């Protein structure tokens, strides 16, 4: 248990997020390990649609990252022909949230997704920016359970000024 406690609390890469002024772009990279559910509807031999709900730990790197990491939760609709549309909420350790919209290819191995920040709460009020990622794998674990991992997540974010901020 001490191992888990130390791993969770200990510093690992030595780079705490920098406190940059609001309005400046912050670039970041990261990974996301997610688990959840996916319900699939077969629409033909080569055509299927699915609704998914995934949650997991999203960890960021880079000196300008807005935070060390978030709990990321995404829901969406995915179609092998029409692509994917989803919504995502990142929540940090204080409970502050970042909202984003997801668009891209069907949720599957190697497929690319683009996220656009559309607002936030608390520290992230009025945040704008975008990020992209690829699924390293998405695996069905039986009974509708699904698990996936994203590596090479890259993006940039600009925190809004607290006064004129947009919040959802």
């Amino acid at each position, binding site marked *: 248990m001490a191992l888990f406690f130390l791993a969770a609390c*200990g510093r690992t890469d030595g780079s705490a997020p920098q406190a940059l002024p609001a309005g400046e772009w912050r670039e970041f990279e990261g990974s996301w390990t997610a688990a959840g559910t996916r319900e699939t509807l077969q629409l033909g031999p080569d055509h299927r649609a699915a609704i998914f709900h995934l949650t997991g730990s999203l960890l960021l790197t880079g000196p300008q990252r807005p935070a060390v990491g978030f709990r990321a939760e995404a829901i969406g609709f995915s179609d092998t022909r029409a692509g994917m549309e989803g919504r995502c909420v990142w929540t940090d350790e204080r409970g502050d949230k970042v909202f984003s919209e997801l668009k891209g290819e069907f949720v599957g191995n190697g497929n690319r997704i683009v996220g656009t920040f559309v607002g936030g709460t608390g520290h992230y009020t009025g945040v704008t920016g975008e990020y992209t990622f690829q699924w390293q794998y998405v695996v069905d674990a039986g009974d509708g359970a699904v698990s996936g991992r994203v590596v090479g997540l890259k993006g940039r974010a600009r925190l809004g000024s607290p006064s004129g901020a947009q919040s959802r």
Partner: protein
Amino acid sequence: MTAAAYDKWVRKLLCLALAAGIWFAPVPAGLTAEAWHLFAVFAAAIVSVILNAFPLLTASLLAVGTVVLSGTVDAAKAFAGFAHSSVLLVVAAFLVANAVVKCGLGRRISLLVVSAFGRSTLGLGYSVFLTDALIAPAFPSNTARGGVLYPIILSLAQANGSKPEDAGTRRLGAYLMFCGMASLSVSSALWLTATSANPLGVSLAVERGLKIGFATWLLASSVPALTTILLLPVILYRLLPPGVASTPDAAAIARTELLRMGRLTRDEWIVAVVFCTMVAGWAMGDRLHLSLTAVAFAGLGLLLATNVLTIADIDLQGSTLVTFFWLAVLFALSTQLNELGFMGYVGERLTALLGGMSWPVTYVVLLVLYVLMHYMFVSQGAHVLALFSVFLDVGTRAGVPAPLMAFALLFASSYFSTLTPQGGSQNIIFVGSGYLTQGELYRLGLLTVGFCLLVYLVLGTPWLLLVAG
């Protein structure tokens, strides 16, 4: 208050202090309060069982009550384990085992085993390991395989006069039960098709460009897995002496008893047919798209319909209800710990600590960490999905040959299941027998997994570098 009662209260307070200490500690950056609080409760529950402050049932009920009432986990998610197919399979397997014992078929099979291997208790231990190793490739579910082995082992223990409530004879049953648990874990590492977690891990390894088939797996696992199968019965015999060592007359007595039992009775025939059909259903479940749990329930229904089992028999299975409660709760809480991002977070953070180390050191540390993290999992599959790719990525980035790292993690994903009684649903069937104490389960679990880790590191590593590296 006696010294023992005082000691127990101290342990309970320690667990409470642990839960409160973690709960109220600042939430680490990158985690949510819910994930952190769930970790506090889950960790305290597991520690309370290890310290023998509470039984598993008490710890589980306190944990689930706390996380639901505090709003940490939704009630629907916290209770989802009660409807999970793996949990229900364990319950059904328990009840079916009861029929095998009650009708006398289990005794007959155990007498056959004793007549062949019964000159010593160690021989019986080997018979458990070898039987499991031989049937394992046909069973994609080690829980279902546990359902096959358990009634035979239970009958073996009973046929040798061992009873859970009798301190003098309990250890023989305890030895055989732990042999059953350990054999399921090491046989699962031997064959690609012996547990559902193996193909799951292989499908993740494919993403790294690795191609692992049935033969490749068997070649890679053969030396370390067969070594553990050959040595573990003796090691467990030393760690948990069964009390009765040599039984030179047992084989002859068993043969006489078999003659006295005569032909199969009606109930034995029914159980034999139902049980063999269930075994066939479990073995071919994947190919025929059958739910393993539905196969078990159908079998149980048939045994009730034919009056081999009665409602009164089910009424007597209170221990099954106890097992069902704690397994369902721990299964759901461990799943939530994963879904709230805690497992992935800890895995990423731990592996980030390894930068700058040489690849052999990274390899050993990663493997040890991967195994130790199983203390927080109640499912091998969930562990593989949450951490296998993270650890494989870090290992290969540090220069560990990808096939070596992948196979080492894949094999560990099987043998680490004996680490805790809840480390794999197949364990639960044996834990519920009552022959093993909580202290024995955790102590033997750690020692068994430690031994397997040593064998896979010392023998397995050079072998893997030779055949797969």
